[in-house]
């Protein structure tokens, strides 16, 4: 009967962000928010674990004032309660600040047997939160899981790495991060959507977490964000004779030293 906590991030939907052709700056003016893609897998995995083993799942998020838009969505996906920290500091928070805030919140609302994260956020994809939380909380960490199971206090998992898979197990408490292939996040049903508005949510004030001012100063800052545009030669052969086109392409490849 594990007590689970899933951490998630409310991000801009990158599909809604457009690159402005004139200066390659990003236009997010029409971008909607979403629960970061991989975090949905973490939420789903927690929900599945609890459906199978009993126990309970809470959710925790830290973001700007817009995180409030995520509460109904996350609660419709399984968690029984969501804790949220809405603070302007999240706008410029790096992975270090985020982990400091989440770890402090977990100390306040915990303890939990299993803390779940996605493998990375769909905006910054820093892929640091799970490992940082394990360091700050002093508990072990299993990352990039494609399979996860709990039996009693023992958490067993399969990691999928570049050179193969490895089986690992550990006694709770533990922090894990899951891959998107671990499950298919549910589409909340009508009753789950309606049920979400009846579940509790609790705001945690950043000021109540006992963090030092320096814990909230980002160590990594981003600048000169530019849309990625490929500069290519665009030499296109479209004569009616395929043989001519092929001959020209061959000459082109030769000029590049490729043949």
């Amino acid at each position, binding site marked *: 009967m594990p007590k689970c906590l899933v951490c998630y991030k409310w991000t801009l939907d*990158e599909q809604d*962000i457009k*690159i402005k052709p004139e200066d390659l700056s*990003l236009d997010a003016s029409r971008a909607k928010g979403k629960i970061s893609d991989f975090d949905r897998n973490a939420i789903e995995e927690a929900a599945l674990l609890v459906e199978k083993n009993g126990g309970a799942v809470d959710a925790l998020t830290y973001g700007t004032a817009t995180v409030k838009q995520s509460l109904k969505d996350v609660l419709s996906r399984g968690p029984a309660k969501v804790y949220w920290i809405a603070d302007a500091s999240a706008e410029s928070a*790096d*992975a*270090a600040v985020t*982990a400091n805030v989440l770890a402090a919140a977990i100390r306040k609302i915990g303890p939990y047997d299993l803390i779940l994260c996605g493998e990375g956020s*769909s*905006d910054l994809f*820093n892929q*640091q*939160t*799970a*490992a*940082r*939380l394990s360091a700050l909380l002093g508990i072990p*960490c299993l*990352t*990039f899981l494609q399979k996860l199971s709990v039996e009693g206090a023992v958490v067993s998992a399969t*990691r999928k*790495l*570049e*050179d*193969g898979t*490895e*089986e*690992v*197990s*550990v*006694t709770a408490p533990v922090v894990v991060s899951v891959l998107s292939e671990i499950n298919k996040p549910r589409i909340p049903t009508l009753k789950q959507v309606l049920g979400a508005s009846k579940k509790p949510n609790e705001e945690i004030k950043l000021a109540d977490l006992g963090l030092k001012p320096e814990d909230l100063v*980002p*160590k*990594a*800052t*981003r*600048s*000169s*964000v*530019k*849309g*990625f545009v*490929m500069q*290519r*030669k*665009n*030499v*296109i*052969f*479209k004569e009616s004779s*395929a043989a001519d*086109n*092929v*001959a020209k*392409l061959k000459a*082109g*490849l030769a000029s*590049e030293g*490729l*043949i």
Partner: protein
Amino acid sequence: MPGIIIFSEDSMLAAQLMTPALELKQSLNQPITALALSEADAKALAALGADHAVFLQSAGKWVDGCAEAIFAQVNKAAASIVLIGGTLRGKTIAAYVAARMNAGMTTDAKTLKVENGKLLATRVLYAGLALCEEAVVLPAVATIRSRTFLAPPAAATPGTVESVTVETDARVTLGAVSPTGDTGVDITTAGKLVAVGRGFRKKEDLKLAEELAAVLKAELACTRGIAEDEHWLPIARYVGISGQTVKPDLYLAVGLSGQVQHMVGCRESKVIVAVNTDERAPIFEAADYGIVGDLYEVLPLLTAALRK
């Protein structure tokens, strides 16, 4: 005296880390300490110019388990910059070490330099939609993915090598380890790739691409649809946002339209060539050279022409 630390459990990647490490050494005037999980790796890194190489000898086999030991070395060396190979294990260790150091970290840096006491890195955001510069105050951690840099030539004077016995995380039990059972083909290291998409009508037709690849000495790559929907080629050959990232000298895209989800995986190729019937397919905007035409006509001609 502060220093630069590098670590990767992947020998090839560790060697590649030496290139940015040596550049940073130039600007910071700090020694490089290379950490390795085998004596051979430690020696190799010393030979490439690490001032000091440390073989972390442990009984534990679980790589991630040495994160705390690596932190201890980082702490001992009063590291200003820690470069870690951006494998999944490496990223886990890096983030752990960064948290223990109370340091900032940049993930998958494409370039690195030091300016005004900060480590500046370029990296992608929003699944490849954008690039940004990330500045991390020192001490800083960065992970670097495989093949971002080439390994440097051997140094004139190799560094010293030391062996240290370390404790690993005993809380985690490592069970079965199953290496990837693929044919051994790694399209990410191929110099040339012929990539196929839905323009091919049936699996047998891929023969046209195979023949072209043979003449070019290229490997076959594919889109998500070919690998995951049609199962015509193994997943390991699928290029795209959730598949492989490649940057060969030549990426010859045949019968694929060039959706951004695919292009993210190949857009850093040196030369991109497209063959497609639809002149307005986005692949042509992403291509250096292109032929508008039916692959069933173009490919045999191209294969024949290149054979000459």
